């Protein structure tokens, strides 16, 4: 698809979609969103870019091989589950840290479930875009 318009729009779009996907991932715990959805949105953005520019550019965009991304994602999720073991909790128990908490406000909550969700996000991004890259390259 060697269309200048599509190519230009896709560059714009991929940035927006990646940004949006991180936003979805971040707010997933309280609003609609999360790792699966964020990952799918990001992958869709990368694929749109790939359709315009070709699989080689998709690889460049990702910088690391999609298989590696999948593995990093899996590891992130597992590690987030292992962290609570340090506290004598069982595997995958949620651990939370509230930054700037006051008497009335809970502050900014950061927890291992978020790290876990980041892992899910990475697996989905890596897996889906990896499949499409492989398809584009090999078929």
């Amino acid at each position, binding site marked *: 698809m060697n269309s200048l318009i599509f190519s230009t729009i896709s560059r714009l779009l991929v940035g927006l979609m990646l940004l949006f996907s991180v936003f979805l991932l971040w707010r997933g715990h309280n609003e609609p969103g*999360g790792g699966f959805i964020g990952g799918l949105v990001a*992958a*869709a953005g990368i694929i749109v870019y790939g359709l315009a520019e070709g699989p080689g550019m998709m690889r460049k965009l990702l910088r690391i091989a999609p298989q590696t991304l999948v593995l990093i994602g899996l590891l992130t999720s597992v590690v987030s589950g292992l962290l609570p073991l340090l506290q004598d909790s069982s595997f995958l128990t*949620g651990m939370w840290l509230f930054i700037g908490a006051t008497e009335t406000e809970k502050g900014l909550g950061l927890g291992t479930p978020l790290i876990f969700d980041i892992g899910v996000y990475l697996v989905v991004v890596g897996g*889906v875009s*990896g499949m*499409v890259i492989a398809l584009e390259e090999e078929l």
Partner: protein
Amino acid sequence: MPADITSQTNAYSNSEIRKGINGSANTAFACALISAIVFFVAYLSQVSSIAAGTPWTFSGEWVPRLGVQLDFRVDGLSLLFGLLISGIGILVFLYSYGYFKVHKGHARLQWLLLSFMLAMLGLVSSDNIILLFIFWELTTITSFLLVGFDHENTQARRSALQALLVTGGGGLALLVGLIMLGQASGSYLLSEIIASGSAVTEHEHYPVILTLILLGAFTKSAQFPFHFWLPNAMAAPSPVSAYLHSATMVKAGIYLMMRLQSSLGGTEEWFYALSIAGGITAVWSSMMALRQTDLKLMLAWTTVMALGTITMFLASNLQIAALAAVTFLIVHAFYKCALFLAIGNVDKSTGTRDFNKLGSLVRFMPITALGAVLAALSMAGFPPFLGFIGKELIYEGTLTIADQPWIIVAAAVAANAMMVGIALTFIFRVFLGGESTITREPKEVYAVMWVGPVVLAIAGLLTGLLPGQITEYVIQPAVSSVMAASAEVKLSLWHGINGPLILSIITVAVGIMLFFSLSIVSRMINNLVEKLPVVGDSAYEFLLNRTQFVASKLTNRLQTGSLSHYLTIVFMAFVVSVAVTLLYHPVSMDFDRLTPVTPFIAIVVFLMISAALVLTFSNTRLLAICALGVVGSGVAVLFLVFGAIDVAITQLMVETLFVVLIATVLIKLPRFPDQTDPAKTRGLRDAVIAIAAGVVMAIITLGVSLTPLDLTVTHFFEENSLAQAYGRNIVNVILVDFRALDTLGEVAVVATAALAVIALLKVRVHAQGPR
């Protein structure tokens, strides 16, 4: 064997290989011998306290939730078996050391014998019936490996498989029987089952329990009509046969019947099942023994006869019967093991086991001959051997128990007379007299090989001369265990002139006649056997062949290799099983739970159904992809309407990606239809299955929607989502916190699928045309 290993072995000299083999064999032998001695001494140390009525118990946890505990309890009966198994084990291990000295499988044999001994000891010492069953199966498996020890021999493999199938099949029946027994009596502990007396015989399932447990015991102890595997199992090496036939394996069934006699016995069913099976087995197998010329095969059949006799006695719940059974068990273990080992020596030394070719072996192998002759005298039941006491007890028992004594007495006399004939054949045709036609000069064997027969033969003599000790410490406690009540028994050689003695004299007379007319008798038996209907081995063969035939037919029918055929079966099974269930258990639908239809949803559903119908009849790929997209988006809209925002977004994203993916791949595939549509009848069948599946599914989903749901789990998530996991999006909290482990698994699946796709795409395939 990979090439590099072969070359490595070749690099060693022969003596180094020998050293290696001997090294591992010596380790195995030492382990086996030491374990046997340790067990034997341990059992001996408990003799007096068990005789005084205190069982030796051990208990440990294993699977507490299933009620399976490592409960061991050694009482009089277990002690008797334990002493026999470990004691004869010592002699058999020693013997095997000499017998297999230069055999490359020596180490394997010793390990197998050791595991077999341990399994048997576990079997007779278990108090928990599930534990007992596990050991029972372990003996089946180890005996399979032992019988098939010479695995390069077709006959050995066949015999091993036969032993496994027959005893394994019986084991399955036994498992069910034992579980039902446990349920019926309310306890899985043998000691408690026995303590509750004959309560089980009143239970409504008693006939089933009895049948199943006896199936297990009869197959294991080679009772008619499952007797055939045992003579075939003599394909095993001599020490293995000696061990299997004398103290172990086949005695497991006897042990079980003895153990459960007080709980399951005392009924008509028990009496007739055991006496008929035992009687037929005893008479039939002694006839079969007479027609053999192979000494080992002859002995194998006499084992079956002995098992039949013991089973026959266990039919009765009188003390004299139990005493006869227990005593005969010991007698048999002694002489049978001694004779098998002696025959092994003869075989090793002369190269044949055919008694027509052998004779006067006492000149060449005097010590083996001494052991064999003494054992044979005990087998024939001559005084002053323990065998005599055993036979007297058998006659006393038969005269006491039977309603129609003369039939059973005649059977017992006939069987015993044949034993006498066989024993005399051993003594006078093989060891003391007879002409040898073998060419090579036989030599006496190593000491480790004659020590077994001699020790056992002398044991048979000593216990016959001085029966007091063994009666008090072994036989009486064992009889008490069988009777589940303390028993007083006394054994002696001389009872004065009475019924049993007269029968003994008749037996010996008939036995001597049989010995002199052996060739005529065996010809008569051969003629008779040919006229009899097919039983035993041939029936087994027939069944096995039929099973294989049916299995291959069925497999060919089911495993056609055609995807649509498999799916047809799957969906037909789905429709039929669900439809039948729905018919017998109709879903109760509460139509008050129906909610009104909104116009918007009606339109969405209408669009989706239309798209689905378009998909069904579409003949171009583009149309099909569009239709599929409409259905998928419709599903997303439904998710959105019913409050599943996350799911709806996911569905939409995936739907989009599908289109990209399918479009990428489909370009490379030919347009459909690239072939004619299925034949009309086939299409009709597919349509029927498809519509039926749809109807069934619609009914189920409607039924479930109209029945109240248990929302406990959902409410838990709703209440704890914010409070415990600090998240307002319940779905996301479930995914990343409450059920994060599931999600981890699902993510792993996604990762695997992605990696598999990438890997598959890298595979270069070579085109080959359709077959």
